[in-house]
């Protein structure tokens, strides 16, 4: 089978893609996510179509019910709810993807180093990982998010810029989100390190960096992709929690988390304002989790449904 003709030209990726398409839940989730991403990207187009801009305040039509001009109604300042949901989605999805990527990069580097070097470096890095995993993260993140950037010695121009919230939340999540990937990559590295093709590279005289990047990393890529996909959902949740608590993305920039928090105050009068952003978070997160699970089963049917979860 390994050398058979039927496999010719079809790498492991093809097989994985085929199994993924066969997984109905994952396929539906993928379609849903793609639709969501397209919609979010098309937000400026939607703005032109309905004739409003995202942060146009219209105090005369506050909390308006859905209409042709405002398909999802307006919020407490008369801003168009649909546009805010779309622009907020941009932020939430962007944070989810970039923070997941940053965590994955950090975790991969730490895991590779620990697994390949072994010994004291490994022991130190893995105790550190255990420590971070065991901590009550949310309270600590709240402290971290409450830190005054001006006191960190950042120049005022950066400390007060509007996009700081975005960068900060990505950095904070990456700072604690790398642990799963680090453990995973370390374990994969430990087993790959003893494989003969790695020994062969060492016999050729390859250095540690080359062995880690050319020989170990490409063979560890699929579990890393699965773990990263599975982490995106948890990260979007985390962003929403922090923004909801007033520590993430700061208004007037919309994110699903801070929209939900804004909607909370008007919950008894206009429950829809709190319902929409929460529902979108829920949809995006469950879609990412189902895709991650699908990818995992496609790669290794036995390991499916084990490691998904909150990061």
């Amino acid at each position, binding site marked *: 089978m390994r050398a058979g003709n039927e496999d010719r030209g079809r790498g492991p990726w093809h097989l994985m893609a085929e199994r993924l398409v066969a997984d109905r839940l994952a396929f539906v989730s993928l379609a849903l996510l793609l639709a969501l991403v397209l919609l979010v990207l098309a937000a400026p187009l939607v703005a032109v179509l309905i004739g409003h801009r995202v942060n146009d305040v219209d105090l005369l039509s506050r909390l308006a019910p859905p209409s042709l001009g405002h398909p999802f109604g307006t919020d407490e300042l008369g801003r168009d709810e649909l546009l805010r949901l779309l622009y907020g989605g941009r932020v939430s999805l962007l944070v989810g993807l970039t923070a997941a990527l940053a965590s994955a990069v950090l975790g991969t580097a730490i895991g590779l180093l620990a697994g390949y070097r072994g010994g004291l470096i490994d022991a130190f890095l893995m105790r550190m990982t255990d*420590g971070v995993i065991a901590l009550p993260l*949310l309270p600590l993140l*709240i402290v971290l998010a409450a830190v005054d950037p001006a006191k*960190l010695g950042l120049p005022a121009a950066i400390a007060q810029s509007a996009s700081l919230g975005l960068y900060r939340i990505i950095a904070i999540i990456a700072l604690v989100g790398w642990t799963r990937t680090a453990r995973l990559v370390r374990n994969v590295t430990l087993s790959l390190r003893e494989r003969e093709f790695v020994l062969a590279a060492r016999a050729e005289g390859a250095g540690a960096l080359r062995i880690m990047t050319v020989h170990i990393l490409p063979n560890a890529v699929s579990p890393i992709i699965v773990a990263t996909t599975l982490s995106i959902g948890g990260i979007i949740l985390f962003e929403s929690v922090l923004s909801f608590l*007033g520590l993430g993305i700061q208004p007037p920039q919309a994110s699903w988390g801070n929209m939900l928090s804004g909607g909370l105050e008007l919950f008894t009068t206009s429950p829809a304002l709190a319902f929409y952003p929460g529902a979108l*978070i829920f949809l995006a997160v469950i879609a990412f989790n189902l895709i991650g699970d699908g990818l995992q089963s496609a790669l290794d049917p036995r390991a499916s449904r084990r490691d998904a979860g*909150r990061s």
Partner: protein
Amino acid sequence: MTRYVAIRLFQALLVLLVMSVVIYGLIGLMPGDPIDLMLSADPKLTPADVAHLKSLYGLDLPLYERYLNWLGAALSGDLGYSRAFAKPVLDVLLPRLGNSAWLLGSSFLLSLALALPVGVGAAARPQGRLDAAVNLFCFAGISVPPFWLALLLIGLFSVELGWFPAGGMETVGDGSLGDRVLHLVLPVLALTLLSVAGFTRYLRAEMLEVLSQDYVRTARAKGVSERNVLLKHALRNALIPVVTVIGLDFGALFSGALITETMFAYPGMGKLIYDSIMGNDFNLAMVALLFATFMTLAANLLADLAVGWLDPRISLA
């Protein structure tokens, strides 16, 4: 065994010490200190007064000296005063700890009571109808934004149906046991929905793993009833890794509690931590965060001890 526990406790102390440095440093980086707050509350204070007050509270010292002072006092049993409550920190903390214990404890037991039969049932017929439903439910459970879930529960059971109170711990002036239980229902439900999914998934996965082992096949071949295979042979072994995961997940449970308590205005540790950070009540925040860390570490240790007790192959010596 004693030695193992002693080493683990020592490690935990070390982690706590490191965490106290980190948290103290981070709190020092948060905007505003108590005197700034006094100043904004009472603009009549002169700069001389401010300087005097700062030196009185030791706030003019460098951060590390302030930390050492704090550590010295804390080790001698003086954890300081809560600014917002004007009470010693422990007097504020301990009752809240009790409240959280009620919330977390009942939700934990309820989660287990649900996860055990559901997880075993799903694993009994993998890919069956129950399994598919459980799978989807679990994904929903780990994907739902926790505060949104709380909001939906409040909207449905409190605003629409009026069955349960939307927040607080007791009706002012009542405070009977029944009243307090009524107040617990929604927060416990919210927290349970959040944690039961994780437990169920782990249990199901571990059950499937164990059920594919040789000794289970042997048991089946010998004619042991399916019920006994599931409960006697498989469940006991599947529980071992699940216990570890539950211990490790205590931190996540605590995060869930923070959100749930905040949403339901339930006066527990989680809400206290959030309020104290937001309200610049530094002494309180410091001690409460360390308490949370300590409890998480303790939960990990207890889980490891429980695993050692459940699994005779693992020696903790």
